[in-house]
């Protein structure tokens, strides 16, 4: 129970109503998606593996969760990239050589625009793409 002063000062204590709300949100994520929590974790691990084949990511800060807005379900992923990443993903091909994937022309033009997700000023500025000249495959 929140004391009068807690309420007066606008302090948010874990009242039983807040506990109820938090528990409801968690249980409904599972109910609505029919995806058990451990399955979600397993999926997250697999998604990270796939993305790592294309991008260097800050694995510790990856967050993938099910969310609901206006009764529609979303799988929301927040995947921070590492600093100094070329905007051209470099992937090793099957023989172990690095291959530069071809990017469409207009991509370079808007490359300086911030990414769609909220800018993360605290950490590395990894959400902006650099307009470096494309790397040559042989000096990669």
């Amino acid at each position, binding site marked *: *129970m*929140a004391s009068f002063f807690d*309420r007066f000062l606008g302090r948010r*204590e874990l*009242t*039983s*109503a*807040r506990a*109820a*709300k938090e*528990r*409801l*949100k968690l*249980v*409904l994520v599972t*109910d*609505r998606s029919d995806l058990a929590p451990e399955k979600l974790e397993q999926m997250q691990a697999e998604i990270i593996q796939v993305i790592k084949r294309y991008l260097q990511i800050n694995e510790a800060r990856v967050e993938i969760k099910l969310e*609901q*807005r*206006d*009764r529609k379900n979303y799988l929301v992923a927040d995947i921070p990239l590492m600093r100094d990443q070329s905007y051209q993903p470099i992937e090793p091909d099957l023989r172990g050589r690095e291959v530069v994937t071809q990017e469409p022309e207009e991509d370079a033009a808007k490359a300086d625009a911030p990414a769609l997700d909220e800018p993360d000023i605290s950490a590395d500025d990894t959400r902006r793409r650099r307009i470096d000249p494309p790397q040559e495959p042989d000096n990669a």
Partner: protein
Amino acid sequence: MGARVITITSGKGGVGKTTATANLSAALASLNQRVACIDADIGLRNLDVVMGLENRIVYDLVDVVEGRCKLRQAMVKDKRVPDLYLLPAAQTRDKTAISPQDMVVVTNQLRDDFDLILIDSPAGIEWGFRNALAPADEVVVITNPEVSAVRDADRIIGLVEAEDRHVPVSLVINRVKPEMVRRGDMLSVDDVMDILAIRLLGVIPEDEMILISSNRGAPLVLDNERSLAGEAFLNIARRLTGEKVPLLRLEQKGGFLRRLSRMFGSSNAMPGE
């Protein structure tokens, strides 16, 4: 097209479906609507006693469906209001005695003679719920500000929204205790709306007059004595007829709550809306 069919349901049992059906039916009839209510809880007939019509039942819904009587013969008239009828459930049969298609046929036969048809759904998400849902033009989900009731409401809303028919769903939050909400010991209307995210049709406070009225078999709205829950049901009935009645979320406003308590001349009144 005729009457609108409104199904009152909840998933969880004991949240106030039957109470709401009885009181909303009576309130709508007192607003000069022609109202039929149907008890779809086969085997656990209850709407008749809450409405105080149990002694006048001759035939029931299963008798109608199985052809033992005409639909008209099974309809029990409530003499306290101009145009209110009850179609009772069978007490000694089980829910499989009726199919969803039967419910559609029965309600279609009533549509021309009424403005509104309210269906009191049984608890659960199985057969009885399917029966009650089949003829619905609208669904009203009743819940309580409590984890298990909200969870079940979410499930029901999901099931209704998964239908191809796109039946509109709205929510009634019943048994709200503003004092507990203020202390942080009960989910608020906003909390529940945050989670369920559908149209809010109304809020009913916890009110011991509900029990007193069902003891007597006299819906609150027909009572001369004013009660907060009765007012809340009347407001919801008005909204169902299309009137714009503002929602007063009293439990968030301590000052207004106290003013209202004084207005109703009681120190421990629990206002709803």
